[in-house]
């Protein structure tokens, strides 16, 4: 009961504060739209919100899934081999340090017109780094005794990975995945905003900008926040199922 009530109350307080802030300062729409301006915007473009919201969501999820696959693979390679870790780490750090906003036009030019591919690609590129790092750290910090217990029984490397290394890394993995979810949304939207004739919520935001429809721009931001929260909690549920053991009861 409390778990549902407290977040909702917090959200209502936030919206009231926002509405009040705009009202007190008497800000016009183009400076800051208030929550009461958003409903009409949502309603007017409800069809677009649904189709574009779906567009943004599936691209983000696909990008994230690729990020998980590639990130786990890199993480495993770096976690098990010191040489690979030494070789790959600087490359990955350098790649991650490049602001993705600068990569967006490059990718857009590279695959002109492939809007879906471009968007998924940026979502993937921006979000795989934390996953790779967390998996590699999880694997490389596995206490040697764990390995010895299984190795002394004649277990293969694969068995050790499957029975110990993988489950032991899951809490770190899910921690990274929570960060990656938000990053993937940023990636998707970067591309959607920049691409001409794009689709998705980012494109809707851009058209709001072009048409000076400020409430629409704010409404898009709220829609993105809602999608972000939803996907985040999907990860939380998965974490509870697969790594719930890592949570200590606080009672």
């Amino acid at each position, binding site marked *: 009961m409390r778990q549902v009530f407290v977040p909702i109350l917090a959200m209502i307080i936030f919206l009231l504060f926002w509405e009040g802030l705009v009202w007190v300062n008497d800000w016009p729409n183009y400076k800051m739209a208030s929550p009461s301006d958003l409903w009409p915007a949502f309603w007017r473009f409800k069809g677009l919100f649904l189709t574009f919201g779906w567009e943004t969501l599936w691209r983000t999820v696909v990008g994230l899934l690729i990020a998980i696959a590639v990130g786990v693979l890199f993480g495993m390679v770096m976690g098990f081999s010191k040489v690979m870790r030494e070789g790959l780490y600087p490359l990955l750090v350098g790649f991650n340090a490049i602001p993705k906003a600068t990569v967006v036009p490059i990718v857009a030019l590279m695959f002109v017109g492939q809007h879906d591919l471009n968007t998924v690609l940026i979502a993937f590129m921006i979000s795989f780094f934390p996953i790779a790092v967390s998996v590699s750290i999880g694997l490389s910090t596995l206490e040697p005794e764990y390995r010895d217990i299984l190795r*002394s029984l004649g*277990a293969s490397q694969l068995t050790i990975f499957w029975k110990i290394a993988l489950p032991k890394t899951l809490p770190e993995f899910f921690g990274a995945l929570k960060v990656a979810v938000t990053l993937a949304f940023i990636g998707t939207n970067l591309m959607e905003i920049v691409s001409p004739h794009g689709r998705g919520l980012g494109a809707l935001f851009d058209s709001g900008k072009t048409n000076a429809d400020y409430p629409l721009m704010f409404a898009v931001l709220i829609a993105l926040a809602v999608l972000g929260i939803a996907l985040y909690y999907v990860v939380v549920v998965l974490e509870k199922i697969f790594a719930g053991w890592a949570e200590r009861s606080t009672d």
Partner: protein
Amino acid sequence: MNILNDNDLIVIDGVSHTFNTNSGNLPVLDRLSLSVPENGFSAIVGPSGCGKSTVTRLVAGLLKPDEGSVWLQGEEVTSPRSTVGMAFQNPVLLEWRSIIKNVLLPLEIVPNDLSASDRESRANDLLKLVGLSGFEDKRPSELSGGMRQRASLCRALVHRPEVLILDEPFGALDAFTREDLWLTMHRLREEEPFTGVLITHDLREAIFLADQVIVLSGRPATVQYIQSMPQQGPRSLDQLYKPEANEMLNILREQIRIARKGEEPAA
């Protein structure tokens, strides 16, 4: 001093080993020879960092000696074998498994023809023996340090290994819990036949649990002194506080002092 006997279950014959570290070569063992008879229980003591744990890794087949050989039951050890059980200072239980699932882990790896229910009753018997009945379905995080170590002992024994290797298993426990676990060890020895090697820093623990106490010299380690215990098998804690026990402790303490002296660079 010929301590090697071909009939012994564990034979370490003239083993030398050197680790290559960043700061150069580090010789840890120097022509070390020792043996443990079948169903015997030997404690290995020595200055810290003298290579005691290296001895256990050699016996378990996790490490190959540079020189010399290690034999189990007349067969040379060249790779890990499932006839060994290990327990460490860190109980390394798998946090995502219940206690009984932790104990069952070796049976998932070692080839055996036990049915699922046979495995479980085997694990349950062991848990009962160490006083963990009723905790089968708890998570390791719900248990105290002593209880985790008991579960770790069960896991080390569940596949009926011939050799049990204990690497300072009670080192992190408080004094009372440690004495409880010593008694548990004697109970296990009565019920489960195994040949034991115990690495420890605690001389009292060594003379209470072992049939013979082997003192290693400082690094690179070799056998410096062997003390056979007058009493083999189970004994009571009272004996540990008798003058005879103190006398033996003094002898061993003196040996450790000599071992540590040998370690210091000559002035």
